[in-house]
Every structure is written in C-alpha cells, then in structure tokens.
C-alpha cells in the first residue's frame, strides 16, 4: 500500500449529475436525522412564522374581497326630463355602454321608484298619501367597473356621461365615494405596513434560526474543510437541508392554516353572531398557497446560504 495508491481509488459513487444529486440528498437527509432536535425546532419556528404570514394574507384577501363588494355600491344615477320610449331608452343605454368603465345599467321606471319609496318609508305610509308615480322621475342606475370606482375616475366618468343628450341630472354621492376610497386607501396602507413588518420579522427569525442550526454544527463545517472538501461539497447538503426545512415548514403552515380555517368555519356559528359561510369568507386561492410554499423554500435556501457564508472560509 503506497501512499500514492489513493490515486487509483475505486469508482466514484457520485459520478454524473444524478449520482452527485443522490449523494447530496442522502447526506442532507442523514444530517437531518442526526440533528433531529435542532431540525424539529427550526422547522417548528419556520412553520409558526409562515403561519402568521398566511393568516394575515387570508385576512387581507378577505378584506379586499369585502371592499370589492362594498365598492359595487358606487353607482351613478342619471335622470332625464321626459319619459323615454323603449327605442329612445335602448339608444341611450347603448350610448352609455360605449363610455369606458360602464358596468351594469339598470332602468328604474317611475312605478319602480315609487315602490322603492314605499319600501323605505315602511310604517309611515301617511307621509305618502297623495304621492303618485308621476311626480317621481324615472332613471338609469349605472354601476362602474372595478377600475373606475375611485373618486377621480368617477368624476371623469360623470363628465363624459353629462355630455350625452337627454340626461338632465346626474347623482353619484361624491362625498361618500371620497370617504370610502380614503378609508380603503388607509386600510391598504396599514395592511401593507403591517404585512411588510411581519414579513421582515419572519425573514429575520427564520434566517437567525437557520444560522443557529448551522452554528451548532460549525465544527463539522470546519472539519469537512480540513479533510479536503470543496466549498460546494460542504455547502450543498446544508442548502438542501435549508430547502427541506423551508418546504416542510411552509407545508405545515399551510396544513395548520387549513385546519384553522375549517375549524373556524365549522364552529363559527356556535360562538359568533354571523356565519362565515354567509359572510362568504374564502380560503387562500391556489396561486397564493403555491406562493407561500415557494416562499418557504426560498426562505430556507437563502437563510442557509447567508449563514454558510459566515462559517465557510477555506
């Protein structure tokens, strides 16, 4: 056995890309098995951190959805001086539809307007004595597209609508729309700030947890370098570990969110005055779930990558 015999070493176990990948995966899984407690703590921290983000995301999505529904009440009512024939009405509707941003257009006849009046003053019928449908104007109620519900867009829309012949008066609750939009902008800003800080906190917590995991194995990193391992050989199993930790952590967070959502839906009727089914609470859509899962993987990968830089200095 001469010392140079190492040059005639047996066939390498990890020849080719797949051979190497197989080796590094096996190594990463063995490492997780050998450092089970640290890995359980890391995965637990990651899943709790991602769970908070996921819950916030779900609240945000439901709020956005609710505001969308509320903003459907932003509508423009157009009145005309004389009663229109069906042909004139159709022509007018066509003109209105040609304005960009027009959604649904509903005709409210004099009779229907009186009926609404009656409904609003239910119990005070005496007030409506002598009121006939003829004194009420017929109108067109126009709902706007989602993109045209802001205060400025609404004003621009009304200006274009006013140019159509036959329309004498337009009502659109300018002040209400302004306040509603201001409130929603404020809520969005609060949401983005809160979400931003939360995501930063999660990144910080996860990166530091992974750093501690790697710090606890700094002797192993040092030794690998001393026995002739290249930087890549040392890093890859740790990076795969980070990816696995992120993947398992985010998958657990998604499962926990699903359980909380289902549990909440199931029991909500018992302890809340409203049913989430009626309130139409929705779960996270598939692209968001995929985003959370991939985000977890990315977090694990980047957490490992940045931590390794501190400890690998061959």
């Amino acid at each position: 056995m001469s010392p140079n015999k190492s040059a005639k070493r047996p066939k390498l176990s990890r020849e080719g890309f797949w051979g190497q990948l197989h080796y590094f995966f096996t190594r990463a899984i063995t490492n997780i098995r050998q450092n089970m407690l640290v890995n359980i703590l890391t995965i637990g921290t990651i899943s709790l951190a991602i769970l908070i983000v996921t819950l916030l995301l779900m609240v945000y999505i439901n709020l956005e959805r609710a505001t969308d529904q509320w903003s459907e009440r932003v509508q423009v009512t157009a009145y005309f001086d004389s009663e229109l024939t069906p042909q004139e009405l159709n022509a007018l509707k066509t003109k209105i539809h040609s304005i960009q941003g027009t959604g649904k257009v509903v005709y409210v006849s004099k009779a229907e307007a009186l009926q609404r009046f009656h409904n609003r003053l239910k119990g005070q019928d005496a007030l409506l004595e002598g009121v006939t449908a003829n004194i009420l104007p017929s109108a067109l109620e126009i709902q706007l597209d989602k993109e045209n519900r802001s205060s400025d867009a609404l004003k621009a829309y009304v200006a274009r609508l006013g140019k159509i012949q036959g329309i004498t008066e337009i009502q659109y609750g300018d002040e209400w729309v302004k306040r509603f939009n201001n409130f929603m902008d404020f809520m969005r800003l609060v949401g983005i700030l809160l979400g931003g800080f939360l995501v930063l906190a999660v990144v910080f917590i996860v990166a530091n947890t992974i750093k501690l995991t790697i710090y606890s194995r700094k002797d192993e990193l040092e030794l690998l370098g001393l026995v002739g391992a290249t930087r890549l050989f040392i890093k890859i199993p740790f990076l795969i570990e980070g990816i696995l930790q992120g993947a398992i952590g985010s998958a657990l967070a998604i499962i926990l969110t699903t359980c909380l959502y289902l549990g909440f839906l199931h029991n909500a009727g018992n302890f809340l005055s409203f049913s989430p089914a009626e309130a139409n609470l929705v779960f996270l859509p598939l692209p968001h779930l995929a985003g959370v899962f991939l985000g977890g993987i990315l977090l694990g990968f980047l957490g490992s990558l940045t931590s390794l830089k501190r400890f690998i200095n061959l």
Partner: protein
Amino acid sequence: MIQLHNVFLSYQKEVSALSNINLKVAKGEFVFLTGISGAGKSTLLKLFYGALKPDRGQVLIDGQNIIRLPAAQIPYLRRKVGVVFQDFKLLPNRTVLENVALTLEVLGWGKKDIGKKVYHILKQMGLEHKINSTPLRLSGGEQQRVALARALVNDPKIILADEPTGNLDEESKSLILNILKESNIRGSTVVVASHDKRLIDNCHRRVVILDKGRITEDSDVPK
C-alpha cells in the same frame, strides 16, 4: 516533500509566531517537531496543510507553493495530507465508521468501498468492534486512534500529527507511534509535533527543535 524558505508569520503585528524558518523534509522522512508550548509547532503544522499562510517567505508542499495556491485549490492539497489534530476533532453525533468515512466521502468513494476500507483501517487500529460507537463512548486512546484512522484511511502522501500521544498511557502511545512508523515505512512522509521528550528519544528519528518561533536545532542524527 515539504520546503520552507525564510518563513515569517505573526498572529498580531507585534507577536511573532514564526521567524525566519528554513526547513526541508524529504519524501518518506519521519520528523519530530518539538519545543515548549507556544514555540510554534502547531503553527508550523498549520502552514503545511494550508490553514495559515505566511506573512513572508515560501512554503512548498508536494511541489505546490501555497502562497500562490488559489483558495479553491486548497481542498485538493489537503487531500494529500492526513492531519491528526491535538483535540481529535471527531464529530460527536456520528459513529466511528461515519467519522473515518468522511475523508473518503470527500474523495467521492462509493458506500461499499468506504465500508470495506474503513473496516480494514479500524482493524489495523484494533477498533473494528467499535465501528458503530459514537466517539463519546470511547476512551481517550481510542478517540486518538479513530482520529489517526481518519487521517490515514486514504493513504495520504503526508501525515501531520499534532501531539498525537498527549495525555495517553504508555501502551496507547506505543501503539500510535507504531502505526505512524508503519505508514512511514509504506512511503508516507510523517511530521509529528510533540513535546514528549521520552517518546522522541526512543524513536531515533530526525528532530527539529523550535523556540519562540525559530528553529534552534535540527538534528538529523538520532541522539
């Protein structure tokens, strides 16, 4: 195999760890580095496996100048050098088999070949029955032999041992020294840093004495 020319090294600007070191160790030689604690023995060994670079001077290991060696090439240099560390550097959560196998895994050996080779070397060390134990369950002498097995398992060209017999009983000392001698007979160049005067005297090999980072004596002739 190892050549140092006018090597100077200091850890901090004012504290000189090595000063004007000139040393040649030929292929197949067995050399003891000795001196009191802090004389520079471990620092010198660290130069040999590229853990440190000198402030001045040249260090050639197996024909490679480590000053000019890019960082990415250091691992390949270390594969030719087996190091036995003073503190063993065994991984406590891995078995003896896994600890020794590390050196071969880095080289890309297959699992079966690793198993055979590790068993073979542990048998030479008299540790084959401890193959599945973790280092914490071993005695000091056994841990030292595992560290030695890890350094020798790939038949390196150079073997460096930092105080390999420190705190060991006479029987373990003798066993470890014999293993190092056998590797030397098989062709490895061996450099042992030790302050165990009795061990060095009994061995009858070249002795390099260091004091305050300088070579004060280099005796080729056994005393």
